[in-house]
């Protein structure tokens, strides 16, 4: 029972990880830093804290 719960939870999350990676272009190609910086300034990701906060620098 406990074993099956742990296996189901962990394996489910690994599968979900793989599923989410399927739709990520940046898995195989690193986005251009300048493009990424411009995109981040335009739409800062919510709730992802960097060490000093995202997009603080102009």
């Amino acid at each position, binding site marked *: 029972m406990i074993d099956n719960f742990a296996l189901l939870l962990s394996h489910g999350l690994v599968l979900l990880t793989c599923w989410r990676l399927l739709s990520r272009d940046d898995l195989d190609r690193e986005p251009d830093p300048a493009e990424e910086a411009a995109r981040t300034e335009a739409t800062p990701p919510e709730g992802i804290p960097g060490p000093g906060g*995202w997009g603080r620098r102009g």
Partner: protein
Amino acid sequence: MRDLVFLAYLAAIFAMGFRRPFLFVLAYAYIDIVSPQRLSYYLLNSIPISLIAFMLAAGGWLLTDDKTNIRLSVRQVVILLLLAYCGWTTAHADFPLEAATKWSWVWKALIFAVFLPLTLRTRLRIEALSLTMVLCASSIIITGGIKTLLSGGGYGTLNLMVTDNAGLYEGSIISTVAICIIPLILYLSNHGTIFPPDWRTRTFGWGLCFACLLIPIGTEARTGLVCAAILAGMALMRAKRRFLYGALMAFGVIAAIPFLPASFTERMGTISSHQGDESASTRVEVWKWTWDYVKDHPQGGGFDNYLQNKLRYMTTRTVGEGSSVRVERIQVEDHGRAFHSSYFEMLGEQGFVGLSLWLLLNLLTLIRTEGLRRRYRGRVEPHLAWVSPYALAMQQGHIVYLIGSLFVGIAFQPFIFMLIALQIAASSYVGRMEKDANWSPLSRRPALQPASA
């Protein structure tokens, strides 16, 4: 039934791998860590899934991956040298059959550690492998954590799904690894992009950290307690309100003691008085034997050469009850005891050359990761902000591993070599970014700005 579920599960991951070949790398890591063949009964045991996954991962990389600017780092070369040396000692081993058995998994772990950084070319890939490793380890840690909460566990009695006590399923090893990955879990729950930080990610992350802390209690592995104390110390060093958090931690530990199983507190009490404990006394004797052995065989005796040791030593035990309690000295004879230390494992099996290479690898890893942490501290650009916190998490985990290694023979643990590969990949990634974009982290100029601007 379980066999069919695992087979369908692997088929699903492999199917996704044909769309994004990097997923084959994750599939191999999953098979290596969780060993689904050992959790099933027959079907998976008859299929070489590990070999299939590796062939697919290597084939996917060879055929589809971008290989521009590819080069081996110094640490990858050190791993290759270590691999070659281990191959030589295996050919000249004191126990050829046993050595060949260990060699059969060691070479795979080392080759995979050299291969991994070649595939981990993007930030997302580094995160994906880190996350997959944590989740795979969580399958053992969650079950161990829940069983500890419900039953209290016990030394050698906590059932971690399989009974053969090998790989990550061994009590002392999972205790060390569980504490070692806590910083990585916290990093992923705060900086992840696959599962962005929200209440669900953080709840799972904190729950998993709690389960990790329960593993040393459940397995009653003293090494885990030492590792947890070291990690707490490192966390406090970085904390702004270290006295407040230190006091809270101390209060938490004191408050938890009444809830700990009596056998756990008794066993932890032997950390400072190893003379009364046969297991700890044996270690000291094995280490003495190893030192004497390498004085005569500086090249090492090959894998599992500890099998030839014969130990005779004095230990103490308490006999009688009440007012008639007395301490007796008794002589213990033992033979074929394992090294119980990665340092002595390397020294005894691979001699001074192997130990030097292994120490160099670990030292370089610590130095390079510390370099990354310092150079990218405070960076806020999206493609750089993750580097310093990631390096810190990996560095703390690696220090925990090196401390745990003092008492556990995990010098060639594949999971640890994957963690080292991740650290090599992070260094190589940053090196490529610097070269590609011609930016300098020290100058703190915006990315891609010409040096003359």
